[in-house]
């Protein structure tokens, strides 16, 4: 027992019943008389539109067509979530200069979906093909053909310590080059948005989004409307994984509705969601590590190139987030992180679960295993020697690491996984077995970064002792709402089934910077806890004033003198006789941004004939500070492992020399399904993190961070290979194992 009534328990989530009954409705399920918008997108990776003939389409009943010629040429950046962030703007609502397959040329509107799609097929577009740019190493030279802003690439640098001295003094220098691919988020709900011109000049935008006020901001930067006239309402979300963090179709939909004075609904098919939204950013990185004789890291140098895709989007932010993780996992006395984001004629990248962490940990953790092989260090011992300790400072001046329990994670995990036994590869017939692991860190909000971090909420305890928590919470399926419910239940004693948590509506909600940066528990959850605390403080204070006796709290209400009064009755009496409601507002600014930590262990069996990898055994160990809902935390980890195995082995949105995508649907884009999913054991380290609600910190993003490197390390140990370019598909393995052809004499 942990001393809590609800925290750390396993309560079923309240929305599950409706979801099991099919009654939980997503945006595309809601009745609407809106015009249906079908996107006309470019079939070519790089082309200019010579002519666009819409006459035939307009002959269909009720059809309207908006092309790039009708749209404003205002440039914006879809990854900007606050006015003045000044992320380089290079995207327009629609374009006559297509920069990737799937780029938006026109929006075809009709009274129904079928007519809209029929009309789209009748629009005749003549394109003039331009040279595509798909390779990272030539992207800078081709940048002027893609964009006329004169920017070749977007550099970023992080440096501290005497890097050159560290490398000159090193006993060993090891280097690796590692690349990761574009990954599709694959939320099962495809992208959709509804915009409705409403009363008083307000434009309502209904969207399954992750950052309510970010949507509002980007729309306001394009339409001639103040923020106060744009009401963004978060609809039920069928998964997001970062894919609904950037503002993709909302500005176009809002503009069309505003221009036509009609409600407009844009609904996308899987193909559009894959090639016309955002991806995990692909990157290639070279890392060098300087070591002393004992295997202590003296310094690290990085040279990273990130593929932003056709528009910069939030990719530069992702690139910088990658670099900032580096000094928060190992003690690195000197670091130079040189990176640049380049634009190519491929699907734009952006936020994706982990926000660069899976990429940079793929680089560092695969490389760390390579170091151990080259210098004959045990990978556990090597890491234990170099990992950060609790309350280490971040050498870049960013937030203190907090109660960083990565060493506990590794020691507990290595013992539970029986690393000492499993570390030796084995083979039987054509199968080879090996084990590997990877360590990782991720953040908890934005404190001590260049971004601000604030969450506002209010809590009202009602006259019957139930409660409503009002906040811009974004439930994406990850149990944000049930977690807030448990936090309020624990702080107030009100049972969870009598608590309602509202979700995002920009017209009524206090400001919150949204579901990003793994801040949902540490920042938003703490705001909820403070609401609960302060509401109970006010209740007790008012009760003492009203009854003029000391007041104590008990499970069934307030103990006033020797009488127990239920909370609801106390609230009623206080409202009537003292003229105040038990309604408190909290605006919470975090005072730290500690690291969350984790280690994942995997054992794989590789079929050397087919190249097929089977993940046979899996252990995830996480330093979560404290689990709010144990089942919610486990659910995040299970799903994250599924996503990470995909990144390691099979998920790949690549582009051929002409810029054509390798996949447009799940027939070619391979997700891990149930037969390929291993059983996953979980160990949680719960040592508490100051500043988080009941000591809790993030889990949703970090849980997918170490998966791919853990599996790649296991494969490389099993096969004695040095595979470093993800994904490690069967073809990659078969090629790696193929004996070199005999040299002709």
């Amino acid at each position, binding site marked *: 027992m942990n001393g809590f009534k609800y925290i750390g328990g396993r309560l079923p989530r309240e929305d599950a019943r409706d979801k*099991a009954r*099919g009654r939980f409705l997503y945006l595309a399920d809601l009745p609407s008389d809106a015009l249906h918008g079908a996107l006309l997108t470019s079939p070519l990776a790089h082309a200019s539109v010579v002519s666009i003939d819409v006459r035939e389409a307009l002959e269909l009943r009720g059809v309207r067509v908006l092309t790039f010629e009708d749209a404003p040429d205002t440039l914006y950046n879809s990854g900007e979530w606050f006015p003045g962030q000044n992320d380089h703007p290079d995207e327009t609502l629609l374009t006559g200069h297509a920069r990737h397959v799937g780029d938006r040329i026109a929006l075809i509107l009709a009274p129904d979906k079928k007519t809209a799609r029929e009309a789209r097929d009748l629009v005749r577009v003549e394109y003039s093909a331009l040279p595509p740019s798909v390779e990272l190493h030539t992207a800078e030279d081709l940048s002027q053909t893609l964009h006329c802003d004169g920017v070749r690439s977007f550099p970023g640098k992080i440096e501290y310590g005497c890097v050159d001295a560290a490398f000159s003094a090193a006993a060993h220098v090891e280097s690796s080059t590692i690349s990761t691919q574009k990954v599709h*988020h694959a939320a099962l709900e495809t992208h959709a948005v509804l915009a409705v011109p409403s009363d008083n000049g307000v434009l309502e935008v209904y969207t399954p989004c992750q950052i309510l006020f970010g949507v509002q901001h980007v729309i306001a930067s394009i339409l001639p409307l103040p923020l106060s006239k744009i009401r963004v309402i978060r609809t039920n979300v069928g998964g997001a994984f970062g894919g609904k963090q950037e503002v993709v179709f909302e500005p176009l939909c809002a503009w069309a509705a505003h221009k036509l004075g009609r409600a407009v609904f844009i609904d996308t098919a899987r193909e559009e969601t894959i090639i016309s939204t955002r991806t995990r950013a692909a990157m290639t990185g070279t890392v060098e590590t300087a070591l002393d004789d004992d295997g202590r890291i003296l310094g690290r140098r990085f040279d990273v190139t990130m593929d932003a895709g056709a528009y910069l989007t939030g990719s530069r932010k992702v690139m910088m987030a990658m670099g900032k993780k580096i000094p928060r996992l190992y003690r690195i006395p000197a670091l130079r992180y040189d990176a640049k984001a380049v634009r190519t004629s491929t699907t734009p990248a952006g936020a994706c679960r982990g926000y660069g962490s899976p990429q940079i940990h793929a680089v560092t953790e695969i490389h760390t295993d390579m170091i151990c092989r080259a210098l004959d260090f045990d990978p556990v011992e090597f890491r234990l020697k170099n990992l950060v300790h609790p309350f280490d400072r971040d050498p870049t001046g960013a937030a203190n690491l907090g109660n960083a329990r990565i060493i506990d994670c590794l020691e507990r995990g290595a013992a539970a996984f029986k690393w000492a036994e499993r570390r030796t590869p084995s083979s039987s017939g054509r199968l080879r077995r090996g084990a590997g692991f990877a360590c990782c860190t991720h953040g908890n909000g934005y404190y001590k970064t260049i971004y601000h971090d604030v969450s506002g909420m209010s809590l009202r305890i009602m006259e019957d002792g139930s409660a409503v928590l009002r906040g811009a919470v974004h439930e994406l399926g990850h149990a944000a709402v049930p977690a807030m419910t448990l936090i309020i239940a624990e702080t107030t004693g009100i049972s969870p089934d009598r608590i309602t948590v509202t979700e995002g509506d920009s017209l009524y909600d206090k400001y919150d910077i949204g579901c990003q940066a793994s801040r949902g528990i540490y920042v938003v959850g703490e705001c909820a806890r403070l609401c609960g605390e302060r509401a109970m403080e006010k209740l007790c204070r008012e009760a003492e004033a009203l009854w003029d006796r000391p007041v104590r709290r008990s499970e069934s209400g307030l103990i006033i003198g020797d009488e127990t009064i239920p909370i609801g009755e106390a609230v009623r009496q206080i409202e009537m006789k003292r003229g105040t409601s038990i309604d408190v507002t909290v605006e919470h600014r975090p005072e730290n941004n500690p690291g969350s930590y984790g280690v994942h262990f995997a054992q794989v069996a590789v079929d050397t004939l087919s190249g097929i990898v089977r993940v046979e055994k899996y252990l995830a160990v996480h330093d979560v500070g404290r689990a709010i809902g144990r089942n919610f935390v486990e659910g995040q980890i*299970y*799903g994250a492992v599924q996503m990470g195995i995909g990144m390691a082995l099979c998920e790949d949105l690549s582009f051929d020399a002409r810029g054509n995508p390798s996949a447009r649907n*799940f027939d070619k884009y391979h997700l891990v399904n*149930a037969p390929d999913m291993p059983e996953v054991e979980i160990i949680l380290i719960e040592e508490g993190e100051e500043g988080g609600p009941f000591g809790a910190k993030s889990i949703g993003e970090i849980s997918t961070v170490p998966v791919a490197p853990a599996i790649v390390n296991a494969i490389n140990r099993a096969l004695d290979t040095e595979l470093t370019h993800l994904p490690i598909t069967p073809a990659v393995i078969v090629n790696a194992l193929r004996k070199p052809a005999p040299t002709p004499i």
Partner: protein
Amino acid sequence: MDVHFTLNGENMSAAADSSTRLIDMLREGCGIKSVREGCGVGECGACTVLMNGDPICSCVTPAVQARGCDVTTVEGLETDGELDAIQESFVTNDAIQCGFCTPGMILTAKALLARNPSPSREEIRRSIAGNICRCTGYIPIINAIEAAAARTREENTAPL
């Protein structure tokens, strides 16, 4: 033309032409919103319905194929507001996160347990191979189906 079929135990008639997909007839003609499109090519299983007891992807099935058939969606599983054992088990075993795949997943499980009341975990995995879930990693779903099977077996063998 009108397609006559049985939907969740009741006679139903809905308009469709030769190009109408079953998913569109159910969503637009019959008001069944639990049948959702995740891919449109029969790869993700979100649009699964039972046709004469077999799970099929309604996004790649012509509506006219439902003529004279018994079609079950997740709305047809509950009795007088009481959830089916599989639905209940999904709720209590944390098999539901975003919920988008849930109706299709439950119907696939329903078909499995009708055919095989005591499936192994491996058989459960194989049966839901065509249903993609991005949230749960399948593990709680497999647990839920296993628990529903056990509960159904207990109820069927309990003395009256």
